[in-house]
């Protein structure tokens, strides 16, 4: 279903877009092409257009039948999306903040993720759940990066773009995919960065990492906002002669370990960087696999930089939570000097 269509960049058919606008464009094109695409979520209809405006204009264009503003009922939003998906529709459900997936975890992990299996393959749940993370200023109940929970649940795919082009292409692929996909949007990335993005529909394949920056000394494996943290660290170190390769996983499930292992085998050094907690975070699995498969080829231990084991503190100043380019650069230097 997810045909790979390469974006045509640098042509007249591209436009500078933020991630938020790129996601809006992906939703718009999917709804235009396929009548079975249906949006559900709190405040998603116009004039609100979603609290992060990602669905702006869509209910005006496609009607409130297909762009459904819901009550504050996360269980019912996901449950209804599962039912509609079982009936062959392609619902895109919005959960305002990732922290609130705890309210509907049953529907996601016990139903969406397991129905294909428990039906012996007779049912499929082509559901996309869009949710947001990453704003420390909202405090501990609006900041959690819970992607590991879902990577740990057989049956659901986990996707997290780091730039506008992937934001559009990955969302299109999630909608077209026949399995449930959790698509995680980073709030601060969604508005900060603008890139040239193709205007027409295209698909970034699920399960394929991108090499964001090539380098021969250290492999940094990362995704989402931490890609930018890692690239910033790499740029600082380049001035000192250290060449860092940055891999943007883009999709956490399926996890593209082939790209990761090929790079780490070349550089002999691997560092995993993410905004999720270091302890039992995605990096734990990635590090274990690298250590297992490349034991003899490594020039040092596989290291991780993530978030410490506390709820998100409200005060960003003085109570650093997410990795910074300084902490990442320091970890890279340690690896190189090992």
């Amino acid at each position: 279903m997810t045909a790979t269509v390469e974006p045509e960049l640098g042509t007249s058919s591209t436009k500078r877009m933020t991630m938020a606008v790129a996601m809006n464009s992906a939703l718009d094109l999917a709804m235009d092409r396929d009548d079975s695409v249906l949006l559900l979520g709190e405040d998603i209809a116009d004039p609100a257009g979603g609290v992060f405006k990602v669905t702006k204009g869509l209910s005006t264009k496609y009607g409130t039948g297909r762009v459904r503003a819901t009550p504050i009922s996360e269980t019912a939003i996901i449950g209804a999306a599962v039912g509609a998906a079982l009936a062959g529709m392609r619902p895109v459900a919005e959960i305002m903040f990732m922290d609130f997936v705890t309210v509907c975890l049953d529907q996601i992990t016990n139903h969406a993720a397991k129905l294909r299996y428990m039906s012996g393959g007779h049912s499929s749940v082509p559901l996309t759940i869009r949710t947001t993370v990453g704003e420390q200023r909202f405090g501990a109940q609006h900041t959690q990066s819970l992607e590991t929970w879902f990577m740990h649940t057989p049956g659901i795919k986990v996707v997290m773009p780091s730039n506008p082009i992937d934001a559009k292409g990955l969302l299109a692929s999630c909608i077209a995919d026949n399995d449930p996909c959790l698509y995680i949007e980073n709030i601060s990335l969604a508005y900060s960065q603008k890139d040239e993005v193709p205007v027409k529909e295209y698909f970034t394949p699920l399960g394929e990492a991108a090499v964001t920056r090539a380098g021969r000394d250290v492999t940094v494996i990362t995704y989402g906002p931490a890609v930018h943290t890692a690239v910033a660290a790499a740029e600082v170190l380049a001035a000192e002669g250290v060449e860092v390769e940055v891999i943007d996983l883009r999709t956490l499930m399926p996890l593209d370990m082939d790209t990761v292992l090929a790079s780490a085998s070349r550089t002999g050094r691997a560092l995993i960087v993410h905004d999720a907690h270091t302890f039992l975070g995605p990096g734990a699995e990635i590090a274990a696999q690298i250590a297992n498969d490349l034991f003899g080829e490594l020039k040092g231990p596989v290291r991780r930089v993530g978030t410490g084991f506390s709820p998100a503190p409200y005060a960003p100043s003085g109570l650093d939570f997410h990795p910074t380019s300084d902490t990442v650069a320091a970890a890279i230097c340690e690896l190189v000097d090992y």
Partner: protein
Amino acid sequence: MTQSPTTEQVDVGDLSTDDLREMYKTMRLITVTGERAVVEVKAGRLKSAFYPVRGLEGSCAALGSAMRPEDQIVSTYRSLGDALAKRSSLRRIIAEIYGKADGTSKGKGGAMHLHDQEAGFITSTGVVGAGLPIAVGLALAASIRGEKRAVVATFGDGSTSIGAWHEAMNLAGLWKLPVVFVCQNNQWAEHTPIDEYAAVTDLESRARAYGMTTAKVDGFDPIRTARVLSEATARARAGEGPSFVEVVTYRLTGHSGSSDYSYMPKDQLAAATERDPAPAFRRWLLDAEIVDETALEEIDKQVAAEVDDAFEFAQNAPQPNASERYTDVFADERQVPKS
């Protein structure tokens, strides 16, 4: 509790003699299959949790007569009756309970997760109350596409205490969806009687608060139950919005197949057992001279043979192949992590 139906009381409405005979057969199938499953569990031949539907046979048969092939149902772990009412294959259901490759889910679902897309038996859930939002979504899809079908959600009385129940009722009422909520009120949630867990035990009144048509019916009266449920499914198909039907019955066994029922008041259980649906309906069919003894015996024999055949089929069916373990996790099995 109200009385068993009698010829004076009952107007069979649109139900033909064939329909009534079919209802009796469904009731017998549920009773005999359930009893056999319990025997198999006790004998150690069937290693499964099994949730008997004893007491609900009339209600399930009534639901069967109210649903058309295009209608869909979402059920619970206590789903044998619903599956048979929806005309799912007995052989494949039993094979699934045995965890065999020929089961409805190739042995990956099990007794609590029966599933038969072709029959419109969309799914069943082991999580109390979780089926209602899913049924709402199926009904939403039907309503968006203009498909004339009723989506039925069945659930126990205990599920009315969980948030998903309330969220789904509100959504269905708000969006006027073609869904029929059928509360199979057997008056027990595991070992807890309804008056010990509910602030308001009149469940119909709760549903009324969500702006839908509601009814409460004696589930030991399958004719009335069938009429009320038929009205509700017809309303859904006609696009007239959701309904809630509280079918009041009593659980004639313990919660699960092998559990005891010492905690159930003896007089209550005895009174309910007097009204055991299949035998009561049989007596009524005879008294009302709708079906004669010979014809009823013929049905009983057919049922016994079908049940024997299904258990034999299931017991002899092949085990799932080990390679099946990692299929159906994702649509594309190459996407499943290797370690």
